[in-house]
């Protein structure tokens, strides 16, 4: 699981039987009391924008409380937020559909700053894109890379470094997960990876101080799963030499899943990567496309693609 905190937004991604939404009321209290932010409207929170999403669970009955089903989650969210909408993306009745809750944009929180919006490389700082890949049925030979032999309870080294982090960093290198992006501009690169015991892997990678990609892997046979989520602007860090199709292929080569869905959010409908990903043909090497859905969500565009492995 991971949490990314920026000055103005946060991203919380949690797996297992976590109770993600139960931090919201306390979070709003902290924001109100410690930061003085007025985010309420008629007793409900009304921040600039909220997204909550998940692929359908493999074992929903083992989830806790409202997280056992999507309807209860959205009901809870509706109690807390103004103007939320719920979407089921993918095919009903399939075990791999994806659900999304999104609030209407509160434009009052967009500010009136007249500060130049483009940075020195001409990148629009207000542009925003997020790509997520959710993969199941990992190739067993690939899954094995995320199984470790260490035992819990090992002594801690005097320098504070522990085996889980050391092995995590090792796994990042061995699998090539540090090479997902071509860093043509030589931007800063920091990783925080952890190899769980007996198996499992999580990593946060931060590039250029403000962009992240995060990976979470549960490699157990029968319900193996891996996720990749990124807000790294590929064109920016690669100096235009790479696109998200290439990123997708590199991630696929690490896991070789039997099934995966890709979601891509973009604030700008003319976003280069959005347009390119839309054009992915129905067959990419080793995979057949099963679904392609485009949503126009207020001021965001969402592309959803699902593929199954053919070989």
């Amino acid at each position, binding site marked *: 699981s991971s949490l*990314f*905190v*920026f*000055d*103005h*937004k*946060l*991203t*919380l*991604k949690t*797996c*297992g*039987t*976590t*109770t*993600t939404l139960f931090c919201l009321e*306390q*979070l709003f209290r902290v*924001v109100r009391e*410690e*930061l*003085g932010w007025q985010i309420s409207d008629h007793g409900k929170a009304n*921040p*600039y924008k909220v*997204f*909550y999403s998940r692929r359908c*669970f*493999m074992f929903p009955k*083992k*989830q806790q409380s409202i*997280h056992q089903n999507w309807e209860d989650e959205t009901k809870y969210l509706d109690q807390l937020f103004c103007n939320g909408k719920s979407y089921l993306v993918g095919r009903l009745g399939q075990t791999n559909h994806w659900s999304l809750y999104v609030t209407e944009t509160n434009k009052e929180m*967009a500010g009136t700053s007249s500060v130049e919006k483009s940075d020195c490389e001409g990148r629009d700082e207000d542009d925003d894109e*997020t790509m997520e890949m959710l993969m199941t049925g990992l190739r067993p030979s690939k899954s094995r890379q995320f199984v470790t032999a260490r035992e*819990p*309870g090992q*002594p*801690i080294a005097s320098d*504070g470094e*522990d*085996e889980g*982090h050391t092995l995590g*960093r090792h796994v990042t*290198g061995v699998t090539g997960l540090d090479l997902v*992006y071509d*860093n043509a501009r030589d931007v800063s690169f*920091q990783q*925080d*990876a*952890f190899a769980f015991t*007996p198996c*499992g892997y*999580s*990593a946060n990678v*931060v590039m250029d101080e*403000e962009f992240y990609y995060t990976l*979470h892997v*549960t490699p*157990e046979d029968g*319900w193996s799963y891996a*996720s990749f989520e990124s807000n790294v602007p590929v064109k920016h860090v690669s100096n235009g030499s790479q696109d998200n199709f290439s990123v997708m292929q590199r991630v696929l080569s690490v896991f070789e899943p039997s099934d995966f869905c890709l979601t891509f959010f973009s604030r700008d409908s003319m976003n280069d990567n959005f347009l390119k990903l839309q054009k992915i043909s129905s067959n990419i090497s080793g995979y057949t496309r099963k679904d392609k859905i485009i949503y126009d969500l207020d001021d965001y565009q969402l592309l959803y693609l699902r593929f199954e492995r053919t070989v």
Partner: protein
Amino acid sequence: TVALNEQTPHSYIDSELSANLDSTDAFEGPEKLLEIWFFKSARCVPDQNRTLRSIDFNTWVQLLELVKCQVLSMKKTEKMDAFLLSE
């Protein structure tokens, strides 16, 4: 390509939790993903001295307890704080 050069150490690491965490009973990979934009951009925050990143680390720990997550480690960069969590 990226060179794996760890120039920045962890800002926080819970070595005891890291050493003792056992994922044997873990299951269910698919994550819940929550993203809250309080403002459109960092420039829109009214007081740059009071932002989400001003919130005390221990407050985040308490918020994450409600989620049933613990902080394994954290790295601070110029524009964001990245927490790696248990589960």
